[in-house]
């Protein structure tokens, strides 16, 4: 697949990916945050499409989603903000959100819009593998979108192989049994899990998410995996320091 994500995964460095909730802290800074992240060497960005009931997220992302919705963020507003993003930004962009807003927009219309804008992939944690395969895979592929699935320490080996087969970019490896933003550091249990997955020789590389918050956890996570995603820690930073000092945060990671 000719896609920015696939190209990026072929580079030999460890990838730093950042998640932020679109529309937070203020409605109209989406493009500014994306540009600033790229300027500071971030490799890939997950743009969070806020949802009223984010089941897999901890308090930090929940609160940022509630605030973003209150600020007026909608699917349409986000697409409008991003319409010229490819004039200034070249790193892979992924939209991450829950399935219901996509379903209401219309799955095909949503995917078509993503292609027009230059979005490279989607992460929809509550779109299950079997439904994707039977109803939506063709649409995603038609519009050149990578669909990213999650695995967790509880995911069976058999299912990991199914997910690997269905994936066409990377596998989002949830670091531990938790919602986002809830772990403090990685222990031997996580390291054993990282090792176990690395030794499975999957066709898709893995990027670790959940619980990455500083240089130490980033290094631990990327010892075996291709990269890591930081979400809640970055949102907390935005809450405290605003959008002006993004470079400081990124420098603290690597």
């Amino acid at each position, binding site marked *: 697949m000719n896609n920015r994500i696939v190209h990026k995964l072929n580079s030999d460095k460890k990838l730093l990916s950042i998640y932020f909730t679109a529309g937070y802290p203020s409605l109209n800074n989406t493009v500014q945050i994306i540009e600033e992240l790229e300027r500071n060497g971030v490799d890939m960005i997950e743009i969070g499409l806020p*949802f*009223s*009931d*984010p*089941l*897999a997220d*901890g*308090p930090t992302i*929940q*609160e940022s989603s*509630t605030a973003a*919705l209150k600020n007026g963020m*909608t*699917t*349409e507003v986000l697409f409008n903000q991003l319409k010229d993003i490819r004039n200034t930004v070249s790193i892979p962009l992924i939209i991450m959100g*829950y*399935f*219901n*807003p*996509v*379903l*209401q*927009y219309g799955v095909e219309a949503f995917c078509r819009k993503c292609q027009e804008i230059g979005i490279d992939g989607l992460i929809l*944690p*509550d*779109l*299950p593998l079997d*439904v994707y395969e039977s109803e939506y895979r063709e649409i995603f592929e038609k519009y050149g979108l990578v669909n990213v*699935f*999650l*695995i*967790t320490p*509880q*995911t*069976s080996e058999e*299912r990991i192989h199914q997910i690997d087969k269905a994936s066409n970019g990377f596998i989002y490896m*949830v670091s531990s*049994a*938790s*919602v986002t933003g*809830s772990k403090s550091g990685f222990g031997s249990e996580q390291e054993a899990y990282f090792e176990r997955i690395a030794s499975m020789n999957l066709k898709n590389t893995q990027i670790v998410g959940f619980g990455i918050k500083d240089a130490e956890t980033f290094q631990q996570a990327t010892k075996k995996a291709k990269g890591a995603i930081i979400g809640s820690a970055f949102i907390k930073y935005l809450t405290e320091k605003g959008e002006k000092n993004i470079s400081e945060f990124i420098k603290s990671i690597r």
Partner: protein
Amino acid sequence: MTYHVNEKGYYGEFGGAFIPEMLYPNVEELRQKYLEIMKEDSFQREFHQLLKDYVGRPSPLYFAKRLSEKHGTKIYLKREDLNHTGAHKVNNTIGQILMAKRLGKTRIIAETGAGQHGVATATVCALMGMQCIVYMGEIDIARQAPNVARMKMLGAEVRPATSGSKTLKDATNEAIRDWINNPVHTHYIIGSAIGPHPYPDMVTRFQSVISEEIKWQLKEKEGRENPDYVIACIGGGSNAAGTYYHFLDEPEVGIIAVEAAGKGIESGESAATSALGKLGIIHGCKTMLMQTPDGQITEPYSISAGLDYPGVGPMHSHLYRSGRAEFYSATDDEAMTAGLELSQLEGIIPAIESGHAFAIFQHKKFKPDDVLVISLSGRGDKDLRTYIDYFKLA
């Protein structure tokens, strides 16, 4: 046309399991085992023994003479209000706690709105000596103090849901997050016929004891198993699912659902999902739900906390869409008036939820020889404060 769940977990186009991968192992384990476990002789024996000796089943099917005279038709009440803990909820929690034990789980979580399902869950956890954590919206905790006290007295921990609207929908989100964080030893006892497959079907099967009993009880009283109508209120829809279950494939039995219209369907403060909802995904299933055009789930409103939910179970969405069931909605005022009428004609104070089912007489006229069975899903003790304020009784 089948009204039952298919092997993939769908009722027509509704249902399925739209869950994050973190929940997959637990939900999949349940999906693979629930039917097998429910069929075991030892399970059935223990379930029915507890329903009889502990819950007090069968619940009576009572001919409501004065109410029948008033409305010019034959009305039977299925007295779920006489169950231990005061509502139908306990049928499901007994079933699920036995299921949890057989799955080797040691920790139970639940969500609750008014606190009825929370109390029913705390009760069975005390009975089985299991740890129990109940998530409840911060606002509901404040307005349902007696049920919070009951849960605590039964040994449960009540955790406030402080996100979103701080009510049932958010308590459900918090319970799901707890399950994500505690994937191995925890079982989540969902209180309604909602959630990812197999929950709607499992809850419906546990509640189906209601219609199973109606059949033989009505045979004794009327010489026939099938009434002309079965009538129930619907929030998520577990008492309705249990009341309808054994009549779904009996076309001569009319199925009537009464939703909560709150202050009126057009008022902006309502929980009438069939009128206001659209196909979408809530709490792991595809069903009718109230949402913005953008797919954000909206806040429902009803005077009864048990019907204050923005969705309806997938089985009910299918009954609505296929035309198998007639859907009505009753406003707060209609439900309260119906509750007062039942109190004064029959000496039974219903839960406000159940009051909605009795408001059917303000919307539909029945024939003199029609036989109706109305699910009296819960008793009104918990609602005394609301009745006092509404009717200025004190």
